[in-house]
């Protein structure tokens, strides 16, 4: 955890905008993390979980037919093969273990698509700690099987009925729970958002993706890639793969959900493109780029991919976009859907709708991308089959 010179700031982004009651818990988490990060027992246990439980390292796969289609050499980082079907477990297992080392009795989390909820339930069950997950009822309806998966693993799922009943409201509700139970409970935040130390902690845990990808591409191609493409909601899979390449001459594309167009109504955005179109503000404890109205009320966001459907983005990504180190772009629902079908057909890999946004950029940017490309397949698409089928009808 570095870069965060002054209380977790990335340039002017980040920080800790939370109720006073939580401040001691954030200090405790930071201290605990810095301590156990150096603890060989903790590290050994985490490495074992990552290899034997999560199934790491994940392959870097040369997608030949996709490569031929786009006239480039395209590799896929196969986070869809992580236990549970998404990169989310990398972070969840690390935080669950940390919570246990810190003596917490209970883990709470929020979930949008259900992927982080499942990762939390899996991680909590495997390290042996109680878990409860907050999920908007709109998302619960969209992802019924994921709710059942969490319950099977002994996790209690709390329906959230406030606001837009999606991820943003689930985070609000989890924060309220945390405020009330802060002494016994660890809040397992699922992305690189929220107050310091979360953006740094989650980034560090997810950067295993980029470390592996870097070693793998050097082994296979004897050089670094020209470009890396990753979808970006809160931004944990993108910063995870980008981070070990930040100092290299590699173009890093953060692809946001363009939804059904980059327009807003009075209370809602038709997209989730906070890096590309948002403005500076404070959401869920961090200063970052957010979707807000003329007065600073948070807009509801939209995406076909529930994991990208969020009105904010990690503060470090906001900073990296501002300094020009990463390139924000976006693709719309229908482009992502086309890419979802294309990868399934060409490669026999059904990507998550979130990851399909990264894939869709191959087409959108055709000609602009140089030869050697890595696309982060952050998750598999099984969870999305029902909604894609419904759209098809």
């Amino acid at each position, binding site marked *: 955890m570095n870069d965060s010179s002054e*209380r977790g700031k990335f340039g002017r982004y980040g*920080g*800790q*905008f*939370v*109720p*006073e*009651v*939580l*401040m*001691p*818990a954030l200090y405790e988490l930071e201290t605990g993390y810095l301590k156990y990060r150096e603890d060989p027992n903790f590290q050994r246990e985490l490495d074992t979980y990552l290899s034997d439980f999560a199934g790491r390292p994940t392959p870097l796969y040369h997608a030949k037919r996709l490569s031929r289609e786009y006239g480039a050499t395209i590799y896929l980082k196969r986070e869809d093969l992580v236990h549970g079907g998404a990169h989310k477990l990398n972070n969840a297992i690390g935080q669950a273990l940390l919570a246990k080392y810190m003596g917490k009795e209970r883990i709470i989390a929020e979930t949008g698509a259900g992927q982080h909820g499942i990762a939390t339930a899996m991680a909590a069950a495997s390290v042996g700690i109680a878990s409860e997950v907050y999920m908007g009822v709109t998302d619960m309806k969209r992802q019924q099987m994921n709710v059942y998966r969490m319950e099977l693993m002994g996790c209690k799922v709390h329906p959230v009925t*406030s*606001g837009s009943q999606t991820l*943003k*409201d689930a985070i*609000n509700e989890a*924060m*309220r729970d945390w*405020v*009330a*139970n*802060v*002494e016994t409970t660890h809040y397992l935040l699922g992305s690189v958002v929220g107050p310091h130390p979360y953006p740094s902690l989650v980034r560090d845990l997810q950067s295993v993706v980029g470390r592996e990808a870097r070693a793998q591409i050097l082994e296979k191609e004897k050089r670094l890639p020209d470009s890396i493409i990753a979808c970006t909601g809160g931004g944990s899979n993108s910063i995870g793969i980008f981070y070990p390449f930040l100092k290299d001459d590699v173009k890093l594309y953060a692809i946001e959900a363009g939804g059904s167009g980059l327009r807003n109504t009075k209370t809602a955005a038709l997209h989730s493109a906070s890096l590309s179109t948002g403005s*500076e*503000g*404070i*959401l*869920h*404890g961090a*200063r970052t780029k*957010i979707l*807000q109205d003329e*007065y*600073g*009320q*948070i807009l509801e966001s939209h995406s076909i991919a529930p994991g990208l459907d969020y009105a904010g983005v990690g503060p470090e990504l906001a900073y990296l976009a501002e300094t020009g180190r990463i390139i924000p772009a976006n693709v719309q629902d229908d482009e992502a859907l086309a890419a979802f079908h294309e990868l399934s057909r060409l490669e026999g890999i059904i990507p998550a709708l979130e990851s399909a946004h990264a894939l869709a950029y191959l087409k959108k940017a055709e000609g602009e991308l140089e030869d050697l490309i890595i696309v982060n397949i952050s998750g598999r698409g099984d969870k999305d089959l029902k909604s894609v089928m419904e759209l098809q009808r």
Partner: protein
Amino acid sequence: MKDVSEAFTDKKALITYICAGDPKIDATEAIVEALIRGGTDLIELGLPFSDPIADGPTIQAATQRALKEGMNPDLFFKLAKKLPGDVPYAVMTYYNLIFHRGIERFVRDCKESGISGIIVPDLPPEEAGELHETSMRYGVHSIHFIAPTTRRERIERITRDASGFIYLVARLGVTGAREDLKEETRSLIERVKTPIPKAVGFGISTPAQVREVIRSGADGAIVGSAIVEIIAKNKDNIRRTCEEVERFTRRLKEGITG
């Protein structure tokens, strides 16, 4: 304009919270008058934010009603200007609305509309520098929080910079009416030693609780959700709301004085 500190001059203070614009934009003035008739010493006016993470279901619902009615910061300050000057006012809102309006402009708007205190539950001292400094320059109090989890060195730091009054969070958790008053509340009141008035809020909802916190050494008691519940119950009948709010406020005030 009365200064928030006047609420504590030679007396213990009853502080009441309502969300501006709940249940209707034009009901707020009448409800404020009812609070004043009931004997409130200070009114905390909520400026509704879409994602109020420190508030429980009661105030969250009030916030959503007010937003639906079209309450916004422009209307809020216009409304605040019209309110009777019998008591001091503080605004309670979340930091994004202040940040978005511009800190200087927000503080100036407070000053010009008769609001002498700013209460921001998602702004710990680590991030509050600019708002505190600007508020001081305008002679507006930026109110600090101390929670049951706040440790001693931190309490000392917070009380050192405090102004107006200190908001003691009675318990872990969000706002909302609760029945019991825990030992942790009493110990918190004792632990915080400062010449600045200490007001206790979060979960204070009955005259008996008001009496208890005052007897435990607090200088003020803050009641929000219990009043908002009355407003929610009678939202189609403002006259009835006002009668009940006045009656309830009077009973709370007896907890202060009796």
